[in-house]
């Protein structure tokens, strides 16, 4: 630093506090251009011959986008064609302030070496810093700062022989005029992008800006105006509006509910019906609603309405569409109904879906149908429609003017052909908001350097447990081994049992990019045949993975137990271990069962197994639930990666052996960190379900004359054990599957923010996650807490901040939920692939639920669930009588009960390429007009069968 000058910048925030920050200006901030020989910079970012072929600029040029261009056209800026861009600090700060996701994307672009994006810290440069003038708004000041910086660049680069210039991109007319006055080269973003000769497809990605009003829209105003935020806020305060999350209905595009979170846990829903009342809200937006007078309240309709067909000419058909709703609204229970008056926060993200090509040839305007039915169709402009047909594409919404039937958006990218495996997997990940991009350079830079070895200092700080006979037991093919076990007899006759968990927190230090990325991902997502890692592979499959015969860092939880599995002593320590074997469940089981084997590993396993059985018994006596859900495993063809067979997962004794000790470790750790940090321990709870959740289970059991008690977990567990029906061995499993569906979701929480810690399913008064830090971020936090508690590591402020912890928990809960959904969706997709290759199969199944017009059938062999509808849109419906008491629907002459054994055909319905699904049709019992003949009689009829 050669010189520094102190300036004072005044800001006022929130209350009436005057904040004064020192602002240092310097004159050693370089321009970052290769063409410059004045600046004493060590390395340059911007290229000397910065050529993007453009009609407007035939000379080499650097782009300087203003804030709005970055915010709205980030999709364009991300394109590899756009290079040599100067991002001013002013712009960066404003973007950061206005949109966190765009900021992150921008940062990623800047880090990419191939893009030649340079951040110029103009706010700290002596010649480009400007102070806000009296009467100038903050925006005007920033615009001026951008112009001043652009001007500085053009002066600075004047001497270049190649005629290098700086081009300012702005969409603000006022700003553009002022820039032209001061002699800058300035273009509107659209203008510039359209001028690019080589890349016409970029135009498609341009977001539609507000001022080039859409010509398609009629002048008629379709929707009421949204209220400004200030009015909404006062309205919410006074109670005339309610704030809530907008959730569009999956089945009816004219209906939605607004979910209102009240204090504590109770929440209510407000029904919204009709386009006018929905008022351009999109699924997941945070909106303000106004309740309608009670006489206008309606009941949710049971009609399925899909917004399909040709693009509606805005106003016309509405009346008709909504009529369908009204009819059903007249009857039955009415619900609080309201209308959306304003949007508090849009939650738009890029949506996956497919293009409906406009019927008019040559047209560049098309409608886009998102894969998620809750998202409205989006109008986009593209010239490559013909090449995009049949592809899955991503589209971002830019805005929804009040005179447009559909929101306007722009094309982001193509994911590939619909129905292809890679494409569909990508869609699954995107739709479930699973961050799955490759790890950025910034993240990877925090990885340990290879070759990595344990140093003397490490050994000095850790307990050396390398001589212990530690082994790991995992499912086959597992590469991220995060737990290992040992068991040995002590001299005093007691047993020492150790659970050794990969010490991930040693490698991931708090606050760095790697940590932030992992915290954001929250969990590793296991798809069929694919794993989306939470931490880079070097850690997950190598340095942290407790593989056999290598030295690894571990966080060990060691108990001294007597032979009755009573814990005498608990101890936690950071250690170094050397696993002697990585076994699969089956291998471990074989060793235990093989009486001829008597090596250390086997003895250790037998000891563990024996203790696990005692532990399990104890747990079940306390009322832990054994629930059931069918999990399937695909045999994946090693070359095509297509599923060739599937089987339900088998559970062995060793599964439960590992599980028992993991539970024990989790509980011990939970107790320890809660004792040490009563305010900020990260724990996991499983709330007891409200009694109403059990209704289905009780009714179902009653139909088979079985009594289920749900007063407590213990009662439930016992009555489930007792529930048996002769000649129906599968009944118990079915009941357990039903019971699982009654449960609440287990969640992470911060101990300082909640008082109820109980884990219902495990019947434990306290619980946390400690044993899988490679795949769960919660465990990393727990590791850190525990390390602080035993004095093995230092703490940091965020760890002790219960509000930050709580926010983190919310993210983790969200990520876990989405990961689960994504996993299920992945299984469903693979099931579809499987049935695609199989054609139609006739299978035996059980009725799991009954609905008014359908039964839901479970096929145990595939762990597959499907719906058999009795009614159809087109044809005359069979005679349906629904008995609420049972509940039992009676179709024609046949009455269905829960748990009935039925036979169904399973086939893939690919009529709608976006929503391919498994279709089930009844073959036994035979009901005329409903059931279909078994497939072998009529093997060819695939689809037409149902339309008869």
């Amino acid at each position, binding site marked *: 630093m050669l010189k520094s000058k102190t300036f004072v910048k*005044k800001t*006022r925030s929130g209350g*009436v506090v*005057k904040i004064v920050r020192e602002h240092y200006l310097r004159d050693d901030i370089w321009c970052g251009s290769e063409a410059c020989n004045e600046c004493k910079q060590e390395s340059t970012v911007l290229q000397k011959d910065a050529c993007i072929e453009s009609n407007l600029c035939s000379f080499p040029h650097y782009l300087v986008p203003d804030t709005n261009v970055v915010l709205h056209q980030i999709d364009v800026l991300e394109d590899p064609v756009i290079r040599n861009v100067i991002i001013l600090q002013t712009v960066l700060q404003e973007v950061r302030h206005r949109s966190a996701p765009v900021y992150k994307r921008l940062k990623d672009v800047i880090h990419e070496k191939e893009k030649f994006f340079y951040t110029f810290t103009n706010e700290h440069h002596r010649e480009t810093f400007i102070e806000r003038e*009296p009467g100038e708004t*903050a925006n005007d000041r920033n615009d001026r700062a951008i112009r001043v910086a652009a001007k500085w660049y053009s002066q600075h680069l004047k001497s270049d022989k190649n005629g290098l210039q700086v081009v300012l991109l702005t969409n603000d007319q006022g700003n553009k005029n002022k820039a032209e006055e001061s002699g800058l080269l300035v273009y509107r973003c659209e203008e510039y992008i359209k001028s690019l000769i080589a890349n016409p497809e970029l135009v498609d990605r341009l977001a539609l800006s507000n001022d080039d009003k859409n010509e398609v829209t009629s002048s008629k105003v379709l929707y009421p105006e949204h209220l400004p935020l*200030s009015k909404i806020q006062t309205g919410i*305060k006074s109670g005339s509006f309610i704030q809530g999350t907008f959730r569009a209905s999956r089945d009816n595009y004219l209906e939605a509910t607004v979910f209102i979170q009240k204090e504590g846990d109770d929440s209510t829903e407000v029904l919204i019906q009709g386009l006018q009342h929905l008022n351009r809200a999109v699924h997941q937006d945070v909106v303000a609603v106004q309740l309608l007078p009670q006489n206008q309240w309606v009941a949710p309709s049971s009609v399925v309405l899909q917004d399909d067909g040709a693009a509606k000419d805005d106003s016309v058909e509405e009346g008709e569409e909504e009529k369908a709703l009204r009819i059903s609204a007249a009857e039955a229970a009415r619900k609080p109904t309201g209308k959306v008056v304003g949007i508090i926060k849009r939650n738009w993200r890029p949506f996956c879906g497919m293009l409906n090509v406009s019927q008019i040839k040559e047209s560049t305007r098309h409608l886009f149908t998102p894969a998620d039915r809750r998202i409205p169709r989006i109008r986009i402009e593209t010239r490559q429609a013909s090449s995009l047909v049949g592809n899955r594409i991503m589209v971002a919404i830019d805005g929804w003017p009040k005179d447009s039937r559909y929101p306007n958006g722009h094309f982001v990218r193509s994911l590939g052909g619909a129905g292809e495996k890679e494409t569909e997997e990508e869609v699954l990940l995107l739709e479930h908001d699973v961050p799955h991009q490759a790890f950025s350079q910034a993240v990877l830079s925090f990885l340990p350097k290879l070759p990595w070895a344990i140093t003397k200092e490490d050994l000095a700080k850790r307990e050396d447990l390398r001589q212990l006979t530690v082994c790991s037991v995992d499912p086959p093919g597992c590469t991220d081994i995060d737990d290992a076990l040992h068991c040995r007899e002590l001299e005093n006759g007691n047993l020492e049992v150790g659970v050794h968990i990969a010490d991930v927190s040693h490698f991931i230090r708090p606050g760095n990019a790697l940590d932030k990325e992992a915290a954001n991902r929250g969990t590793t997502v296991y798809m069929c045949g694919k794993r989306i890692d939470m931490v880079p592979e070097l850690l997950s499959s190598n340095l942290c993975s407790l593989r056999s015969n290598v030295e690894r860092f571990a966080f060990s939880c060691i108990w001294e137990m007597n032979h009755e599995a009573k814990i005498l002593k608990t101890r936690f320590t950071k250690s170094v271990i050397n696993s002697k074997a990585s076994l699969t469940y089956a291998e471990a089981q074989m060793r235990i069962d093989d009486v001829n084997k008597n090596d250390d590993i086997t003895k250790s396993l037998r000891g563990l197994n024996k203790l696990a059985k005692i532990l399990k018994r104890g747990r079940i006596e306390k009322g832990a639930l054994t629930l059931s859900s069918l999990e399937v495993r695909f045999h994946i063809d090693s070359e095509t990666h297509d599923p060739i067979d599937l089987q339900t997962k088998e559970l062995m004794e060793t599964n439960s052996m590992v599980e028992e000790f993991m539970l024990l470790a989790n509980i011990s750790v939970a107790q320890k960190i809660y004792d040490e940090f009563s305010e900020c321990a990260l724990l996991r709870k499983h709330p007891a379900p409200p009694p109403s959740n059990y209704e289905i289970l009780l009714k179902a059991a009653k139909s088979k004359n079985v009594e289920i008690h749900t007063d407590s977990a213990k009662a439930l567990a016992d009555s489930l054990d007792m529930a048996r029906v002769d000649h129906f061995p599968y009944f118990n499993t079915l009941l357990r599957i039903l019971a699982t569906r009654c449960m609440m979701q287990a969640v992470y929480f911060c101990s300082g923010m909640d008082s109820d810690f109980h884990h219902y399913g495990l019947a434990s008064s306290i619980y946390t996650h400690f044993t899988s830090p490679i795949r769960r971020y919660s465990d990393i936090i727990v590791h850190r807490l525990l390390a602080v508690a035993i004095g093995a590591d230092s703490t940091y402020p965020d760890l002790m901040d219960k509000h930050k912890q709580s926010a983190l928990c919310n993210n983790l809960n969200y990520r876990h939920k989405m990961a689960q959904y994504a996993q299920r969706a992945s299984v469903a997709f693979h099931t579809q692939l499987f049935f695609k290759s199989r054609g139609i199969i006739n299978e035996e199944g059980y009725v799991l639920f009954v609905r008014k017009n359908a039964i839901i059938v479970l096929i145990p062999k595939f762990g597959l669930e499907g719906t058999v509808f009795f009614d159809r849109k087109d044809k005359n419906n069979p005679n349906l009588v629904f008995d609420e008491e049972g509940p039992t629907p009676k179709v024609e002459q046949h009455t269905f009960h829960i748990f009935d054994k039925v036979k169904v055909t399973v086939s893939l319905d690919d009529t709608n390429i976006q929503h391919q699904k498994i279709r089930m049709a009844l073959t036994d019992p035979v009901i005329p007009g409903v059931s279909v003949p078994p497939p072998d009689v009529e093997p060819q009829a695939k689809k037409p069968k149902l339309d008869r």
Partner: protein
Amino acid sequence: MATVKVSEAEKVYILHGIRDDLRVDGRGCEDYRHMEIETDVVSNTDGSAKVTLGHTAVLVGIKAEIGKPRPLVPDEGYLEFFVDCSANATPEFEGRGGEELGTELSNTLYKVFNNKNSIELKSLCISAGEHCWVLYVDVLLLQCDGNLYDAISVAIKAALFNTKIPRVHISSDEEGTKEIELSDDPYDCMRLDVSNVPCIVTLCKVGHRHVVDATLQEKACSVASLIISVTQKGTVTCSRKVGGGSLDPESIFEMTEAGKRVGKALHAPLMNLLQQEESLGKKRQKVGFLG
């Protein structure tokens, strides 16, 4: 209080000098010492001023905060005073040594300045009975060389002149709930009307005469002094006697008259100076504490 030891001979010398209207440093009885004023010296206050008078140096910072109006006067804001006698000024102030003096000073300042005749207190009201501006006036004594009251009062007047209170708007909805909105323009400020803000003139009775702006030595020769606060127009708003000795009615009258005269003469150049400084705006080279 900072005191100096003065020998009997010195006392006689000072006394005789004053009798002849010629003080030790060459001033007449109604002359002030050299005074320097600079405003806007502390950036994180809303208004500040630094005044040096001879070797006496005081720094005044004013912070405006939103508070609740006093119940008796719901439509007025108010001022709070705090005088910090830093041990920098004199070693006697070390520890809690300056506390007594500080309290005495702040009580006097409160009497002089916190009334609606000195400052338009109503203009500090944001919404009657609910919100008002509270001006926290913090006085820091940097050096004591006599005549603290006058120096502090001049500094307070200058700081009040310099004070920029962020402008707030009250928005209320149909239900009548009010909300304070802050303008996002940092230049959008409210200024105070300081035309009626008085200055304090301290008159020290030395022998049979009285002097203004007494040095520590002169103070040591005096038995009693009169503090009066005078506005621009020469109105006396407050007077107070300090010191152990007594004053006869006649000399009180004389001293008051002299005080009015001196006070009036003090205001005009002070306002002039402040306005001049203000007009320089941002271009003014700041002197600060090192100049």
